[in-house]
Protein backbone atom coordinates (compact mmCIF):
# COMPACT_ATOMS: atom_id res chain seq x y z
CA UNK A 1 0.00 0.00 0.00
CA UNK A 2 1.20 3.49 -0.94
CA UNK A 3 1.86 5.92 1.92
CA UNK A 4 -0.53 8.62 0.68
CA UNK A 5 -3.80 8.01 -1.13
CA UNK A 6 -5.21 10.71 -3.41
CA UNK A 7 -8.84 10.66 -4.54
CA UNK A 8 -9.82 10.93 -8.21
CA UNK A 9 -13.16 10.82 -10.03
CA UNK A 10 -12.51 7.69 -12.08
CA UNK A 11 -13.48 7.94 -15.74
CA UNK A 12 -12.83 4.52 -17.30
CA UNK A 13 -14.47 5.28 -20.68
CA UNK A 14 -16.92 3.17 -22.71
CA UNK A 15 -14.34 0.80 -24.21
CA UNK A 16 -12.72 0.13 -20.81
CA UNK A 17 -16.13 -0.77 -19.39
CA UNK A 18 -16.85 -3.15 -22.25
CA UNK A 19 -14.36 -4.85 -24.60
CA UNK A 20 -11.28 -3.79 -22.62
CA UNK A 21 -12.65 -4.51 -19.15
CA UNK A 22 -9.30 -6.09 -18.19
CA UNK A 23 -7.94 -2.53 -18.20
CA UNK A 24 -10.53 -1.56 -15.60
CA UNK A 25 -9.74 -4.71 -13.64
CA UNK A 26 -6.00 -4.01 -13.61
CA UNK A 27 -6.51 -0.32 -12.77
CA UNK A 28 -8.55 -1.27 -9.73
CA UNK A 29 -5.89 -3.83 -8.74
CA UNK A 30 -3.00 -1.37 -8.80
CA UNK A 31 -4.76 1.82 -7.60
CA UNK A 32 -4.22 1.38 -3.82
CA UNK A 33 -0.62 0.30 -4.42
CA UNK A 34 0.27 3.50 -6.26
CA UNK A 35 -1.62 5.92 -4.01
CA UNK A 36 -4.79 6.35 -6.06
CA UNK A 37 -8.26 6.14 -4.57
CA UNK A 38 -10.81 5.67 -7.35
CA UNK A 39 -14.19 7.29 -6.79
CA UNK A 40 -16.82 5.84 -9.13
CA UNK A 41 -19.42 8.19 -10.56
CA UNK A 42 -22.16 6.07 -12.18
CA UNK A 43 -23.68 9.12 -13.91
CA UNK A 44 -20.55 9.66 -16.02
CA UNK A 45 -21.51 9.54 -19.71
CA UNK A 46 -19.39 8.97 -22.83
CA UNK A 47 -16.97 11.79 -23.65
CA UNK A 48 -18.02 11.69 -27.30
CA UNK A 49 -14.59 10.46 -28.44
CA UNK A 50 -14.37 13.02 -31.24
CA UNK A 51 -17.13 11.07 -33.04
CA UNK A 52 -20.18 12.82 -31.60
CA UNK A 53 -18.47 16.09 -32.54
CA UNK A 54 -18.81 15.15 -36.20
CA UNK A 55 -22.57 14.84 -35.84
CA UNK A 56 -23.16 17.65 -33.35
CA UNK A 57 -20.14 19.60 -32.04
CA UNK A 58 -21.90 21.26 -29.12
CA UNK A 59 -23.44 17.96 -27.97
CA UNK A 60 -19.96 16.52 -27.48
CA UNK A 61 -18.85 19.53 -25.46
CA UNK A 62 -22.08 19.35 -23.42
CA UNK A 63 -21.42 15.66 -22.68
CA UNK A 64 -17.96 16.55 -21.39
CA UNK A 65 -19.28 19.57 -19.48
CA UNK A 66 -21.78 17.27 -17.76
CA UNK A 67 -18.92 14.98 -16.72
CA UNK A 68 -16.90 17.99 -15.51
CA UNK A 69 -19.87 19.18 -13.44
CA UNK A 70 -20.30 15.73 -11.89
CA UNK A 71 -16.63 15.64 -10.85
CA UNK A 72 -16.78 19.25 -9.69
CA UNK A 73 -19.71 18.39 -7.43
CA UNK A 74 -17.41 15.95 -5.66
CA UNK A 75 -14.50 18.38 -5.77
CA UNK A 76 -12.29 15.85 -7.55
CA UNK A 77 -9.99 15.86 -10.58
CA UNK A 78 -10.97 13.39 -13.33
CA UNK A 79 -8.62 10.46 -13.87
CA UNK A 80 -8.79 8.59 -17.19
CA UNK A 81 -7.05 5.45 -18.39
CA UNK A 82 -7.97 6.19 -22.01
CA UNK A 83 -5.94 8.58 -24.16
CA UNK A 84 -8.94 9.30 -26.36
CA UNK A 85 -11.17 10.25 -23.40
CA UNK A 86 -8.34 12.43 -22.08
CA UNK A 87 -7.87 14.11 -25.47
CA UNK A 88 -11.59 14.64 -26.09
CA UNK A 89 -12.27 16.04 -22.63
CA UNK A 90 -9.28 18.36 -22.73
CA UNK A 91 -10.42 19.55 -26.17
CA UNK A 92 -13.86 20.34 -24.72
CA UNK A 93 -12.23 22.08 -21.79
CA UNK A 94 -10.13 24.18 -24.17
CA UNK A 95 -13.25 25.20 -26.15
CA UNK A 96 -15.22 26.05 -23.00
CA UNK A 97 -12.38 28.25 -21.79
CA UNK A 98 -11.73 30.04 -25.06
CA UNK A 99 -15.04 30.22 -26.96
CA UNK A 100 -17.82 32.18 -25.20
CA UNK A 101 -20.36 31.24 -27.91
CA UNK A 102 -19.72 27.55 -27.29
CA UNK A 103 -19.99 28.05 -23.54
CA UNK A 104 -23.34 29.82 -23.95
CA UNK A 105 -24.68 27.11 -26.30
CA UNK A 106 -23.58 24.34 -23.94
CA UNK A 107 -25.10 26.08 -20.92
CA UNK A 108 -28.36 26.37 -22.83
CA UNK A 109 -28.41 22.65 -23.59
CA UNK A 110 -27.57 21.77 -19.99
CA UNK A 111 -30.33 23.99 -18.64
CA UNK A 112 -32.81 22.07 -16.55
CA UNK A 113 -30.51 19.10 -16.04
CA UNK A 114 -29.71 20.20 -12.48
CA UNK A 115 -26.01 20.25 -13.32
CA UNK A 116 -24.08 23.48 -13.42
CA UNK A 117 -20.44 23.92 -14.30
CA UNK A 118 -19.39 26.50 -11.74
CA UNK A 119 -15.68 27.03 -12.29
CA UNK A 120 -14.15 25.85 -15.56
CA UNK A 121 -10.68 26.92 -14.49
CA UNK A 122 -10.78 24.37 -11.65
CA UNK A 123 -11.60 21.39 -13.91
CA UNK A 124 -8.75 18.93 -14.30
CA UNK A 125 -8.64 15.91 -16.61
CA UNK A 126 -5.55 13.80 -16.05
CA UNK A 127 -4.37 10.59 -17.65
CA UNK A 128 -2.97 7.81 -15.48
CA UNK A 129 0.40 8.15 -17.21
CA UNK A 130 0.77 11.70 -15.89
CA UNK A 131 -0.24 10.72 -12.36
CA UNK A 132 2.26 7.87 -12.30
CA UNK A 133 4.97 10.01 -13.81
CA UNK A 134 4.54 12.65 -11.14
CA UNK A 135 5.14 10.04 -8.46
CA UNK A 136 7.70 7.93 -10.31
CA UNK A 137 10.15 7.89 -7.41
CA UNK A 138 7.61 5.91 -5.39
CA UNK A 139 7.44 3.34 -8.18
CA UNK A 140 11.17 2.84 -7.75
CA UNK A 141 10.62 1.86 -4.12
CA UNK A 142 7.57 -0.29 -4.82
CA UNK A 143 8.81 -2.33 -7.81
CA UNK A 144 10.06 -5.85 -7.19
CA UNK A 145 13.51 -6.81 -8.37
CA UNK A 146 13.55 -9.02 -10.25
CA UNK A 147 9.96 -9.03 -11.50
CA UNK A 148 8.26 -10.92 -14.35
CA UNK A 149 9.25 -8.20 -16.83
CA UNK A 150 12.92 -7.97 -15.88
CA UNK A 151 15.21 -8.31 -18.88
CA UNK A 152 12.49 -7.72 -21.47
CA UNK A 153 12.77 -4.92 -24.00
CA UNK A 154 9.60 -2.87 -23.50
CA UNK A 155 8.24 -0.63 -26.26
CA UNK A 156 5.99 2.14 -24.91
CA UNK A 157 3.18 3.10 -27.28
CA UNK A 158 1.85 6.60 -26.66
CA UNK A 159 -0.34 6.73 -29.78
CA UNK A 160 -1.85 10.05 -30.76
CA UNK A 161 -4.45 11.58 -28.44
CA UNK A 162 -2.32 11.54 -25.29
CA UNK A 163 0.02 14.04 -26.94
CA UNK A 164 -1.78 15.77 -29.76
CA UNK A 165 -2.86 18.49 -30.22
CA UNK A 166 -0.20 19.53 -27.70
CA UNK A 167 -1.88 22.92 -27.22
CA UNK A 168 -4.81 21.11 -25.58
CA UNK A 169 -3.02 18.25 -23.86
CA UNK A 170 -1.54 18.49 -20.38
CA UNK A 171 0.99 15.83 -21.43
CA UNK A 172 2.66 18.27 -23.78
CA UNK A 173 6.17 17.74 -24.97
CA UNK A 174 5.16 15.60 -27.92
CA UNK A 175 8.01 13.79 -29.66
CA UNK A 176 10.55 14.69 -27.03
CA UNK A 177 8.45 13.37 -24.18
CA UNK A 178 9.97 10.55 -22.18
CA UNK A 179 7.28 10.17 -19.50
CA UNK A 180 6.39 6.61 -20.46
CA UNK A 181 10.04 5.64 -20.71
CA UNK A 182 10.83 7.19 -17.32
CA UNK A 183 8.01 5.21 -15.69
CA UNK A 184 9.40 2.01 -17.21
CA UNK A 185 12.89 2.91 -15.96
CA UNK A 186 11.52 3.65 -12.48
CA UNK A 187 10.24 0.09 -12.39
CA UNK A 188 13.80 -1.09 -13.03
CA UNK A 189 12.87 -2.12 -16.57
CA UNK A 190 14.26 -1.44 -20.01
CA UNK A 191 12.35 0.86 -22.44
CA UNK A 192 13.24 0.79 -26.13
CA UNK A 193 13.19 3.87 -28.32
CA UNK A 194 11.54 3.47 -31.71
CA UNK A 195 9.96 5.84 -34.22
CA UNK A 196 6.45 4.36 -33.98
CA UNK A 197 5.93 5.21 -30.32
CA UNK A 198 3.90 8.39 -30.97
CA UNK A 199 2.28 7.31 -34.24
CA UNK A 200 -1.20 6.17 -35.18
CA UNK A 201 -2.49 2.65 -34.50
CA UNK A 202 -5.27 3.04 -37.09
CA UNK A 203 -8.14 2.34 -34.68
CA UNK A 204 -10.33 5.25 -35.77
CA UNK A 205 -10.53 3.95 -39.33
CA UNK A 206 -10.32 0.23 -38.54
CA UNK A 207 -13.92 -0.27 -39.72
CA UNK A 208 -14.06 2.60 -42.19
CA UNK A 209 -10.93 2.23 -44.33
CA UNK A 210 -9.58 -1.18 -43.41
CA UNK A 211 -6.82 -1.20 -46.00
CA UNK A 212 -5.29 2.02 -44.67
CA UNK A 213 -5.86 1.00 -41.03
CA UNK A 214 -4.11 -2.34 -41.51
CA UNK A 215 -1.19 -0.68 -43.27
CA UNK A 216 -0.77 1.71 -40.32
CA UNK A 217 -1.02 -1.12 -37.81
CA UNK A 218 1.47 -3.26 -39.69
CA UNK A 219 4.00 -0.42 -39.71
CA UNK A 220 3.81 -0.16 -35.89
CA UNK A 221 4.90 -3.79 -35.51
CA UNK A 222 7.66 -3.47 -38.10
CA UNK A 223 9.04 -0.50 -36.16
CA UNK A 224 8.79 -2.34 -32.82
CA UNK A 225 10.53 -5.36 -34.33
CA UNK A 226 13.24 -3.09 -35.74
CA UNK A 227 13.93 -1.88 -32.19
CA UNK A 228 14.12 -5.52 -31.03
CA UNK A 229 11.20 -5.00 -28.66
CA UNK A 230 9.77 -7.97 -26.77
CA UNK A 231 6.46 -6.46 -25.70
CA UNK A 232 4.42 -3.30 -26.24
CA UNK A 233 2.68 -1.26 -23.56
CA UNK A 234 -0.07 1.20 -24.37
CA UNK A 235 -1.81 4.02 -22.55
CA UNK A 236 -5.03 3.73 -24.59
CA UNK A 237 -7.57 0.86 -24.70
CA UNK A 238 -8.48 1.73 -28.30
CA UNK A 239 -4.86 1.27 -29.38
CA UNK A 240 -4.91 -1.99 -27.43
CA UNK A 241 -7.99 -3.18 -29.31
CA UNK A 242 -6.15 -3.15 -32.61
CA UNK A 243 -2.57 -3.80 -31.47
CA UNK A 244 -3.69 -6.90 -29.60
CA UNK A 245 -6.94 -7.95 -31.28
CA UNK A 246 -6.01 -7.34 -34.92
CA UNK A 247 -2.33 -8.24 -34.74
CA UNK A 248 -2.91 -11.58 -36.45
CA UNK A 249 -4.53 -9.76 -39.41
CA UNK A 250 -1.34 -7.87 -40.19
CA UNK A 251 1.35 -10.32 -39.09
CA UNK A 252 1.87 -13.59 -40.95
CA UNK A 253 2.07 -16.91 -39.13
CA UNK A 254 5.89 -16.91 -39.18
CA UNK A 255 6.29 -13.34 -37.99
CA UNK A 256 6.96 -12.48 -34.35
CA UNK A 257 3.86 -11.70 -32.28
CA UNK A 258 4.00 -9.04 -29.58
CA UNK A 259 2.12 -9.29 -26.30
CA UNK A 260 0.51 -5.88 -25.70
CA UNK A 261 -0.01 -4.74 -22.11
CA UNK A 262 -2.17 -1.95 -20.73
CA UNK A 263 -0.20 0.54 -18.61
CA UNK A 264 -1.73 -0.64 -15.28
CA UNK A 265 -0.85 -4.24 -16.20
CA UNK A 266 2.79 -3.23 -16.62
CA UNK A 267 2.73 -1.55 -13.21
CA UNK A 268 0.93 -4.51 -11.64
CA UNK A 269 3.41 -7.08 -12.96
CA UNK A 270 6.36 -5.01 -11.75
CA UNK A 271 4.77 -4.58 -8.33
CA UNK A 272 4.08 -8.29 -7.95
CA UNK A 273 0.30 -8.31 -8.46
CA UNK A 274 -1.14 -11.72 -9.40
CA UNK A 275 -1.50 -12.05 -13.20
CA UNK A 276 -5.13 -13.17 -12.86
CA UNK A 277 -6.02 -9.97 -11.01
CA UNK A 278 -4.58 -8.01 -13.93
CA UNK A 279 -6.72 -9.79 -16.53
CA UNK A 280 -3.73 -10.88 -18.59
CA UNK A 281 -5.63 -13.99 -19.68
CA UNK A 282 -8.01 -11.76 -21.65
CA UNK A 283 -5.57 -10.75 -24.36
CA UNK A 284 -5.80 -12.24 -27.83
CA UNK A 285 -2.01 -12.25 -28.25
CA UNK A 286 -1.06 -14.20 -25.16
CA UNK A 287 1.37 -13.10 -22.48
CA UNK A 288 3.92 -15.75 -21.49
CA UNK A 289 7.12 -15.44 -19.58
Amino acid at each position, binding site marked *: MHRHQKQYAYFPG*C*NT*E*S*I*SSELDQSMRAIAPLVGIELVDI*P*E*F*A*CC*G*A*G*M*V*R*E*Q*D*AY*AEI*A*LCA*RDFALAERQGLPILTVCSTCQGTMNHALHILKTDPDALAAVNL*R*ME*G*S*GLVLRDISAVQVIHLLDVLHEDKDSLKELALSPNPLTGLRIAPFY*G*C*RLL*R*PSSESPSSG*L*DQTRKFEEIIESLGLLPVNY*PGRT*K*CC*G*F*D*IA*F*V*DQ*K*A*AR*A*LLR*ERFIEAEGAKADILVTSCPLCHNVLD*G*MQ*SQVRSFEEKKFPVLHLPQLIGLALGVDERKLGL*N*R*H*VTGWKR
Partner: protein
Amino acid sequence: MSTTITLVIRRQKPGDSGSFFMEHQVEADGKTVLDALKEMRDTVDPSLAFRAQCKSGICGSCALRVNGSARLACSTFLSAVQIEGRVVLEPLLNFAVEEDLVVQDRPFWKAIEAIKPWLWSDKGYEHEAVVPPQVKNGTDCILCAACYSECEVQAVKPSGYTGPAGFVQAHRFVADKRDHGGKERLKLLETEGLWSCAHSYNCSEVCPKDIDIGGAIADLRSQALAAGLGRNAGGRHVAWFTRGVRRNGKMNEFWTLAGTRGWRIIFDLPTGLAMAIRGKIPWPWGKKAKSSREVRRYFRSKNQ
Protein backbone atom coordinates in the same frame (compact mmCIF):
# COMPACT_ATOMS: atom_id res chain seq x y z
CA MET B 1 29.38 32.77 -24.86
CA SER B 2 28.29 31.44 -28.24
CA THR B 3 26.67 28.01 -28.60
CA THR B 4 27.93 25.55 -31.13
CA ILE B 5 25.63 22.84 -32.40
CA THR B 6 26.06 19.96 -34.82
CA LEU B 7 23.93 20.09 -37.95
CA VAL B 8 23.24 16.64 -39.33
CA ILE B 9 21.90 16.81 -42.88
CA ARG B 10 20.49 13.92 -44.87
CA ARG B 11 21.89 14.17 -48.37
CA GLN B 12 20.97 12.38 -51.55
CA LYS B 13 22.37 12.82 -55.05
CA PRO B 14 19.89 13.23 -57.92
CA GLY B 15 18.89 9.83 -59.28
CA ASP B 16 20.38 7.93 -56.33
CA SER B 17 18.07 5.87 -54.15
CA GLY B 18 20.40 5.83 -51.15
CA SER B 19 21.16 8.72 -48.82
CA PHE B 20 23.94 9.61 -46.39
CA PHE B 21 24.35 12.02 -43.49
CA MET B 22 26.71 14.99 -43.46
CA GLU B 23 27.67 16.62 -40.16
CA HIS B 24 28.87 20.15 -39.62
CA GLN B 25 29.39 22.39 -36.60
CA VAL B 26 27.73 25.82 -36.65
CA GLU B 27 27.34 28.71 -34.25
CA ALA B 28 23.67 28.60 -33.26
CA ASP B 29 23.08 31.96 -31.57
CA GLY B 30 20.32 33.94 -33.26
CA LYS B 31 20.39 31.71 -36.33
CA THR B 32 17.50 30.00 -38.03
CA VAL B 33 17.81 26.64 -39.75
CA LEU B 34 17.71 28.50 -43.06
CA ASP B 35 20.57 30.82 -41.99
CA ALA B 36 22.66 27.76 -41.16
CA LEU B 37 21.86 26.05 -44.46
CA LYS B 38 22.84 29.15 -46.44
CA GLU B 39 26.05 29.49 -44.45
CA MET B 40 26.90 25.88 -45.19
CA ARG B 41 26.19 26.28 -48.88
CA ASP B 42 28.30 29.45 -49.05
CA THR B 43 31.25 28.26 -46.99
CA VAL B 44 31.33 24.44 -46.95
CA ASP B 45 29.55 22.81 -49.89
CA PRO B 46 28.02 24.83 -52.75
CA SER B 47 26.25 21.70 -54.01
CA LEU B 48 23.96 21.50 -50.95
CA ALA B 49 20.38 21.65 -52.30
CA PHE B 50 17.41 23.15 -50.45
CA ARG B 51 14.40 25.33 -51.30
CA ALA B 52 13.82 28.79 -49.85
CA GLN B 53 12.43 32.09 -50.99
CA CYS B 54 10.87 34.73 -48.74
CA LYS B 55 12.67 34.11 -45.41
CA SER B 56 9.50 35.38 -43.71
CA GLY B 57 7.29 32.34 -43.22
CA ILE B 58 4.99 33.39 -46.05
CA CYS B 59 5.96 31.53 -49.22
CA GLY B 60 6.01 28.02 -47.73
CA SER B 61 9.01 26.91 -49.84
CA CYS B 62 11.43 25.97 -47.09
CA ALA B 63 9.52 23.26 -45.20
CA LEU B 64 11.72 20.34 -44.16
CA ARG B 65 11.97 17.93 -41.24
CA VAL B 66 13.84 19.20 -38.20
CA ASN B 67 14.59 16.56 -35.57
CA GLY B 68 11.83 14.35 -36.93
CA SER B 69 9.06 16.89 -37.42
CA ALA B 70 8.15 19.17 -40.34
CA ARG B 71 8.88 22.88 -39.88
CA LEU B 72 9.71 25.97 -41.86
CA ALA B 73 13.51 26.42 -42.01
CA CYS B 74 13.16 30.21 -42.04
CA SER B 75 11.08 30.41 -38.84
CA THR B 76 12.86 27.78 -36.77
CA PHE B 77 15.70 28.85 -34.51
CA LEU B 78 18.45 26.31 -34.01
CA SER B 79 18.67 27.01 -30.29
CA ALA B 80 14.94 26.26 -29.86
CA VAL B 81 15.01 22.84 -31.52
CA GLN B 82 18.45 21.42 -30.74
CA ILE B 83 18.47 18.19 -28.76
CA GLU B 84 21.70 17.54 -26.91
CA GLY B 85 23.51 19.92 -29.23
CA ARG B 86 22.29 18.30 -32.46
CA VAL B 87 19.80 19.35 -35.14
CA VAL B 88 18.94 16.71 -37.75
CA LEU B 89 17.62 18.04 -41.06
CA GLU B 90 15.82 15.77 -43.51
CA PRO B 91 13.57 16.20 -46.54
CA LEU B 92 9.78 16.06 -46.07
CA LEU B 93 8.18 12.64 -45.81
CA ASN B 94 5.64 11.23 -48.27
CA PHE B 95 7.57 12.64 -51.26
CA ALA B 96 10.28 11.28 -53.54
CA VAL B 97 13.55 13.15 -53.02
CA GLU B 98 14.83 15.24 -55.91
CA GLU B 99 18.16 16.13 -54.30
CA ASP B 100 19.28 16.58 -50.65
CA LEU B 101 16.45 18.53 -48.93
CA VAL B 102 14.47 19.20 -52.13
CA VAL B 103 11.48 16.95 -52.79
CA GLN B 104 9.41 16.29 -55.92
CA ASP B 105 6.27 18.10 -54.85
CA ARG B 106 4.01 17.40 -57.84
CA PRO B 107 1.84 14.83 -55.91
CA PHE B 108 1.03 17.49 -53.31
CA TRP B 109 -0.28 19.93 -55.91
CA LYS B 110 -2.18 17.17 -57.71
CA ALA B 111 -3.85 16.15 -54.42
CA ILE B 112 -4.99 19.73 -53.87
CA GLU B 113 -6.14 20.17 -57.46
CA ALA B 114 -8.31 17.08 -56.98
CA ILE B 115 -10.71 18.98 -54.71
CA LYS B 116 -11.05 21.82 -57.29
CA PRO B 117 -9.92 24.64 -55.02
CA TRP B 118 -11.56 27.56 -56.75
CA LEU B 119 -14.90 29.32 -56.38
CA TRP B 120 -17.66 27.37 -58.10
CA SER B 121 -20.06 29.99 -59.25
CA ASP B 122 -21.85 30.69 -62.51
CA LYS B 123 -23.57 33.78 -61.15
CA GLY B 124 -22.22 37.24 -60.68
CA TYR B 125 -21.84 38.79 -57.26
CA GLU B 126 -24.66 41.28 -56.97
CA HIS B 127 -24.44 41.76 -53.23
CA GLU B 128 -21.69 42.15 -50.75
CA ALA B 129 -20.96 38.70 -49.28
CA VAL B 130 -19.78 38.44 -45.71
CA VAL B 131 -17.47 35.46 -45.46
CA PRO B 132 -17.46 33.50 -42.19
CA PRO B 133 -14.28 33.13 -40.10
CA GLN B 134 -13.76 29.54 -41.27
CA VAL B 135 -12.57 30.94 -44.60
CA LYS B 136 -9.52 32.26 -42.79
CA ASN B 137 -8.21 28.71 -42.33
CA GLY B 138 -7.82 28.31 -46.07
CA THR B 139 -6.47 31.76 -46.71
CA ASP B 140 -3.92 31.44 -43.89
CA CYS B 141 -2.57 28.21 -45.39
CA ILE B 142 0.76 28.83 -47.15
CA LEU B 143 0.77 25.41 -48.87
CA CYS B 144 4.12 24.47 -47.35
CA ALA B 145 3.21 20.74 -47.28
CA ALA B 146 4.36 20.25 -43.67
CA CYS B 147 0.99 18.60 -42.92
CA TYR B 148 1.22 16.41 -46.03
CA SER B 149 4.64 15.22 -44.85
CA GLU B 150 3.48 14.23 -41.35
CA CYS B 151 0.10 12.74 -42.28
CA GLU B 152 0.29 9.03 -41.59
CA VAL B 153 -2.76 8.17 -43.68
CA GLN B 154 -1.14 9.97 -46.61
CA ALA B 155 1.80 7.60 -46.24
CA VAL B 156 -0.37 4.50 -46.66
CA LYS B 157 -2.95 5.98 -49.04
CA PRO B 158 -1.06 7.66 -51.87
CA SER B 159 -4.14 7.98 -54.07
CA GLY B 160 -7.77 8.86 -53.34
CA TYR B 161 -6.76 11.05 -50.41
CA THR B 162 -6.38 14.77 -50.84
CA GLY B 163 -4.64 15.12 -47.47
CA PRO B 164 -4.77 17.78 -44.76
CA ALA B 165 -3.95 20.80 -46.94
CA GLY B 166 -6.60 19.71 -49.46
CA PHE B 167 -9.21 19.45 -46.71
CA VAL B 168 -8.30 22.90 -45.42
CA GLN B 169 -8.76 24.36 -48.90
CA ALA B 170 -12.06 22.52 -49.31
CA HIS B 171 -13.25 23.79 -45.94
CA ARG B 172 -12.50 27.30 -47.05
CA PHE B 173 -14.74 27.00 -50.13
CA VAL B 174 -17.53 25.07 -48.37
CA ALA B 175 -17.71 27.94 -45.86
CA ASP B 176 -17.62 30.65 -48.52
CA LYS B 177 -21.15 31.94 -49.21
CA ARG B 178 -20.17 32.95 -52.74
CA ASP B 179 -19.40 29.32 -53.60
CA HIS B 180 -22.23 27.30 -55.09
CA GLY B 181 -20.53 23.90 -54.81
CA GLY B 182 -22.63 22.82 -51.83
CA LYS B 183 -23.41 19.12 -51.81
CA GLU B 184 -21.41 18.45 -54.99
CA ARG B 185 -18.25 19.72 -53.32
CA LEU B 186 -18.86 17.53 -50.27
CA LYS B 187 -19.54 14.54 -52.55
CA LEU B 188 -16.21 15.14 -54.24
CA LEU B 189 -14.52 15.11 -50.83
CA GLU B 190 -16.02 11.70 -50.09
CA THR B 191 -14.05 10.31 -53.03
CA GLU B 192 -10.97 12.19 -51.81
CA GLY B 193 -10.81 10.38 -48.47
CA LEU B 194 -12.87 12.60 -46.17
CA TRP B 195 -13.71 9.58 -43.98
CA SER B 196 -10.19 8.11 -44.02
CA CYS B 197 -8.61 10.68 -41.69
CA ALA B 198 -7.55 8.76 -38.55
CA HIS B 199 -7.65 11.75 -36.17
CA SER B 200 -4.00 11.57 -35.15
CA TYR B 201 -3.57 15.36 -35.31
CA ASN B 202 -0.05 15.33 -36.74
CA CYS B 203 -1.25 17.92 -39.27
CA SER B 204 -2.54 20.42 -36.70
CA GLU B 205 0.59 19.89 -34.65
CA VAL B 206 3.08 20.83 -37.36
CA CYS B 207 1.13 23.56 -39.17
CA PRO B 208 3.38 26.65 -39.01
CA LYS B 209 0.26 28.84 -39.25
CA ASP B 210 -1.50 27.09 -36.36
CA ILE B 211 -4.48 26.14 -38.49
CA ASP B 212 -6.86 23.78 -36.69
CA ILE B 213 -6.77 21.24 -39.51
CA GLY B 214 -8.32 18.45 -37.43
CA GLY B 215 -11.19 20.80 -36.58
CA ALA B 216 -11.67 21.68 -40.26
CA ILE B 217 -11.91 17.99 -41.19
CA ALA B 218 -14.41 17.35 -38.37
CA ASP B 219 -16.49 20.29 -39.58
CA LEU B 220 -16.45 19.03 -43.18
CA ARG B 221 -17.66 15.62 -42.00
CA SER B 222 -20.37 17.28 -39.96
CA GLN B 223 -21.53 19.23 -43.00
CA ALA B 224 -21.43 16.12 -45.18
CA LEU B 225 -23.71 14.33 -42.69
CA ALA B 226 -26.04 17.32 -42.53
CA ALA B 227 -26.23 17.26 -46.33
CA GLY B 228 -27.38 13.63 -46.24
CA LEU B 229 -24.03 12.21 -47.38
CA GLY B 230 -23.65 9.73 -44.54
CA ARG B 231 -24.43 6.54 -46.47
CA ASN B 232 -20.90 5.22 -46.28
CA ALA B 233 -18.88 3.41 -43.60
CA GLY B 234 -17.54 6.68 -42.12
CA GLY B 235 -20.96 8.30 -41.92
CA ARG B 236 -22.55 5.17 -40.46
CA HIS B 237 -19.74 4.93 -37.89
CA VAL B 238 -20.50 8.42 -36.57
CA ALA B 239 -24.28 7.92 -36.72
CA TRP B 240 -24.32 4.59 -34.84
CA PHE B 241 -21.79 5.78 -32.29
CA THR B 242 -23.84 8.90 -31.59
CA ARG B 243 -27.11 6.95 -31.47
CA GLY B 244 -25.79 4.83 -28.57
CA VAL B 245 -24.57 7.86 -26.65
CA ARG B 246 -27.83 9.72 -27.14
CA ARG B 247 -29.90 6.74 -26.02
CA ASN B 248 -27.91 5.44 -23.04
CA GLY B 249 -25.23 8.00 -22.36
CA LYS B 250 -22.61 5.44 -23.46
CA MET B 251 -21.29 4.26 -26.78
CA ASN B 252 -22.67 0.86 -27.76
CA GLU B 253 -19.80 -1.07 -29.32
CA PHE B 254 -21.96 -3.85 -30.76
CA TRP B 255 -24.26 -1.58 -32.74
CA THR B 256 -21.48 0.82 -33.71
CA LEU B 257 -19.56 -2.07 -35.24
CA ALA B 258 -22.59 -3.81 -36.79
CA GLY B 259 -24.06 -0.56 -38.10
CA THR B 260 -20.76 0.56 -39.62
CA ARG B 261 -19.83 -2.70 -41.26
CA GLY B 262 -23.30 -3.89 -42.32
CA TRP B 263 -23.20 -7.27 -44.10
CA ARG B 264 -19.41 -6.96 -44.39
CA ILE B 265 -19.23 -7.87 -40.73
CA ILE B 266 -18.96 -11.51 -41.85
CA PHE B 267 -15.36 -10.72 -42.85
CA ASP B 268 -14.65 -9.68 -39.25
CA LEU B 269 -15.92 -12.93 -37.74
CA PRO B 270 -12.50 -14.63 -37.32
CA THR B 271 -11.16 -11.64 -35.36
CA GLY B 272 -14.43 -11.33 -33.46
CA LEU B 273 -14.31 -15.00 -32.52
CA ALA B 274 -10.69 -14.75 -31.34
CA MET B 275 -11.68 -11.81 -29.14
CA ALA B 276 -14.87 -13.49 -27.91
CA ILE B 277 -12.88 -16.54 -26.76
CA ARG B 278 -10.97 -14.16 -24.48
CA GLY B 279 -14.19 -12.66 -23.15
CA LYS B 280 -13.98 -9.53 -25.29
CA ILE B 281 -17.61 -9.50 -26.37
CA PRO B 282 -19.54 -6.29 -27.06
CA TRP B 283 -23.12 -7.12 -26.03
CA PRO B 284 -26.03 -5.64 -28.02
CA TRP B 285 -27.66 -4.23 -24.87
CA GLY B 286 -24.46 -2.36 -23.90
CA LYS B 287 -23.92 -0.18 -20.84
CA LYS B 288 -26.02 2.68 -19.57
CA ALA B 289 -24.99 5.76 -17.60
CA LYS B 290 -27.10 6.56 -14.55
CA SER B 291 -29.59 9.39 -15.22
CA SER B 292 -28.74 9.18 -18.92
CA ARG B 293 -32.16 10.44 -20.06
CA GLU B 294 -31.04 14.03 -19.55
CA VAL B 295 -28.19 13.43 -22.03
CA ARG B 296 -30.73 13.32 -24.90
CA ARG B 297 -31.47 16.99 -24.33
CA TYR B 298 -27.85 17.84 -25.13
CA PHE B 299 -28.30 16.89 -28.75
CA ARG B 300 -29.53 19.33 -31.35
CA SER B 301 -33.16 18.84 -32.15
CA LYS B 302 -33.97 18.41 -35.84
CA ASN B 303 -35.32 21.91 -36.25
CA GLN B 304 -32.33 23.59 -34.56
